[in-house]
């Protein structure tokens, strides 16, 4: 008896089945956002008396219910806030800061380690404006840290942090962590929110 070849399976509709699945996944896919601004809330503790802070070391940012911005008693646009914060932080008023590039304005902060940014908002402020202001203030710190890190280690701060998180980075992470901590000590993020 002659050997009979197995009949070929008709694969013509395979594409249709695959299309069906494809369309299902296309429709159900939602690209989730998983990035944002990290913050740390202050713990609740009953402070008997708040520490005395010189007025010039505080940078007050007020956001009212109509989303208007008042910075150090002057109305300001959000786009100017970053530069104003940088000027304040990097001022180096009393000369104790050896790496600051500021104008040494006597009305602004003495030293980045003493400088505090105080943010106050009202209940009616919209969330998007609040986020915009937070973003600009964080950006001011990041700009200064990047500049300091570039000067000391020839690499921006953001890159060092990215490397520290990257599991495939070949360098010495302990040393890198030390460098990051050093920069963080030079420009500590002191952002307080008034309740």
């Amino acid at each position, binding site marked *: 008896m002659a050997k009979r070849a197995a009949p070929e399976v008709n*694969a013509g509709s*395979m*594409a249709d089945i*695959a*299309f069906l*699945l*494809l369309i299902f*996944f*296309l429709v*159900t*896919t*939602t*690209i*989730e*956002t*998983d*990035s*944002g*601004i*990290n*913050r*740390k*809330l*202050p*713990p*609740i503790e009953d402070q008997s008396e708040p520490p005395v802070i010189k007025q010039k070391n505080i940078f007050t940012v007020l*956001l009212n219910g109509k989303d208007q911005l008042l910075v150090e008693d002057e109305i300001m646009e*959000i*786009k100017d806030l970053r530069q104003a914060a940088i000027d304040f932080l990097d001022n180096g008023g009393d000369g104790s800061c050896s790496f600051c590039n500021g104008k040494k304005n006597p009305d602004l902060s003495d030293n980045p380690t003493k400088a505090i940014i105080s943010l106050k*908002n*009202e*209940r*009616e*402020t*919209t*969330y*998007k*404006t*609040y*986020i*915009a202001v*937070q*973003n*600009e203030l*964080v*950006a001011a710190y*990041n700009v200064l840290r990047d500049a300091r890190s570039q000067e000391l280690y020839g690499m921006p701060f953001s890159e060092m942090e990215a490397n520290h*998180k990257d599991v495939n980075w070949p360098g010495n992470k302990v040393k890198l962590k030390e460098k990051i901590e050093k920069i963080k000590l030079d420009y500590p993020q002191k952002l307080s929110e008034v*309740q």
Partner: protein
Amino acid sequence: MSKFKKKKGGEIPAVNTAALPDIVFMLLFFFMVATVMRQNSLKIENNLPFADQVEKLDKKDLVMYIYAGKPSENYKQMGTEAKIQLDDSFADVKDIAGFIAEQRASKREELIPFLTTALKVDSDANMGLIGDIKQELRKVNALKINYTTKKGSVIGN
């Protein structure tokens, strides 16, 4: 001589579609791998604001999500004020403490200090609600928070 017989018919041959399933499967696999199934179905409008100083949230399993925003079209009867959504239902500010405790109980003990609370809040919500949420989080000592934002310029807000 039939050696130079003219080929019969001048029709264009049909396009070979044998590789079409392969191409479609390739796309299919891409979407299957890239898809993240939503954990919660949203009952609120959730149009996140933009920011550019963002950090990525890694370790997805160590994130607790709190949503807030106006009730969406299908839940009009809940009013037009911004509301909080925890898991799959509307919630009150005072429910947050219970929610956090529940989330903590479901994680291994040594991981609890690394838990982050991601606030996914609609850009039109007002800060009063967020202030309340933050106050509640401070009470239960869940201090690491993340304002989830889209990547973009703040001027677009």
